[in-house]
Every structure is written in C-alpha cells, then in structure tokens.
C-alpha cells in the first residue's frame, strides 16, 4: 500500500510542475511459470488516476509490460492551492490511494 509521492510544496500560479509517483506492487505478468510448470496468475495494477481539486488531470492504463512497483511521472499547470489525489486500481479488486497538497501563490 505504500506510495511515494513527489509534488512541489509551493509553486507560482501558472508554473508547469512535475508530479512523480511510485507505488509498491508486484505487477505479476501472468506469463511466468513456477518451477513445476504452473502458470502464475496475473496480478497487476490496470489503472492510475490523478485528480487536482477533484478534476482529473492525468490517467494511465497499465499493462503487464510496466515494471514492478510502477513509477509514473507527468506534468500539470499549478492553478490553485489544493490537493492532488492519486488512485491505483487493479486485478483482484486492488485499490490504493494517496494524496499531496500544494500551495500556489
């Protein structure tokens, strides 16, 4: 469930800021076999969403080709002080959230 979020604490109005997220997840591809030949079932995060004061600013569909512990970096324009909310959802009902706040001058 652990997630690392990197958002600048402060920004000027109109600045383009980078948001970096890292979450812990095995991202089991569903293509691997155990030593006795059994297929290891797929267990991945399939979707990531970032909302800025409620409005969606970034979304991603993830596939088994995304490495374990998915890292994502993207950009947004700092418009107003408030909160970023992050949500990861995936196989077997996986769901995890995190948030970060920003002060915009």
């Amino acid at each position: 469930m652990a997630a690392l979020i990197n958002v600048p604490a402060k920004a000027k109005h109109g600045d383009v800021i980078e948001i970096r997220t890292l979450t812990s997840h095995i991202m089991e591809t569903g293509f691997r076999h155990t030593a006795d030949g059994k297929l290891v079932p797929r267990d991945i995060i399939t979707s990531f969403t970032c909302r800025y004061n409620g409005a969606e600013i970034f979304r991603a569909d993830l596939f088994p080709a995304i490495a374990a512990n998915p890292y994502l970096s993207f950009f947004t324009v700092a418009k107003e002080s408030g909160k970023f909310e992050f949500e990861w959802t995936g196989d077997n009902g996986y769901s995890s959230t995190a948030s970060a706040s920003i002060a915009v001058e």
Partner: protein
Amino acid sequence: MPTTRRQFLSLAGGATVAGTIPIVTIRPLDATPAMLTAAIRNVVGEAQIRTGRVKLDIPPLVENGNTVPMTVSVTSPMTANDYVKSIHVFNEKNPQPNIGNFYLNPSSGRAQVSTRIRLADTQKVVAVARLSDDTFWQVAADIVVTLAACTEEMN
C-alpha cells in the same frame, strides 16, 4: 552462414556502446509483426500515422529487461486548441503488444510522461501520440536487451 537481421542489430548495438555515442535507430514502421500493427490500429483506427513530433528516451542497450526507464515527450504548445490527448506505447516482442496508455489534457502544461517498463527481448518500442486535432504521430526505437523480463521461472 549468412548474417541474419538479429545478428546485425546486436552487432550494431554493441558497436554503438563501444563508440560511446548512444544512437537510437529511428526507422519507419514498415515490417512490424502483426500483433504490434494490430495493437496500433486498435488505437489509431484508419487514420494515417505520421513520423515525428514524438521523442522516445530509452537506453539503446539494456542489461536487465525487468526495469527499463522510458520517457516519452511530444512537441506541443499544450493550449486549449492544440494539445496532446494521449500517448500510447507499444512493443514488438513481449507476450502482449501494449505497454501503457497515458491520457493528458491542456492543463498538463507539458506533454511528457516517464515510467519504467519490461522488455522480454531485443526489440522495437513504438510511441504514438494523438493530438487534439486527431492526427497521430509516432516514433520507434530499437533496444538491445541482454537479460529478458516476463517469462523467467518463478523461484
């Protein structure tokens, strides 16, 4: 024995490293395996795909295919009338052709996304961007992988 394309590419990759000039070969998408083409058509539909505007930053030689850093950026002013709607990344030889879809909007400010991916073999990675006028732009990069991901046995 005649030199195969694969041998040639791995030699070319080795020479690139020896020369310390990291060159990512960029070629038009002529002879791609059917799965990659189908996956791209699934996103693009019948629209024409042009080469350019998209930049794919990925190491040309990768020791461990389990985690390969990748950055896709698109040249765009990112205004309300001219912005990047989405970025789609595909591969040629993993068990599945999709890597990720990333959806942006004018408030993204900069059309750039980074993540870490898995590569099961020495292969080509393709990034396609959909702009707000529904034109599609792409770039392809060849990557040499020495340790493959995805299909190894689980301990």
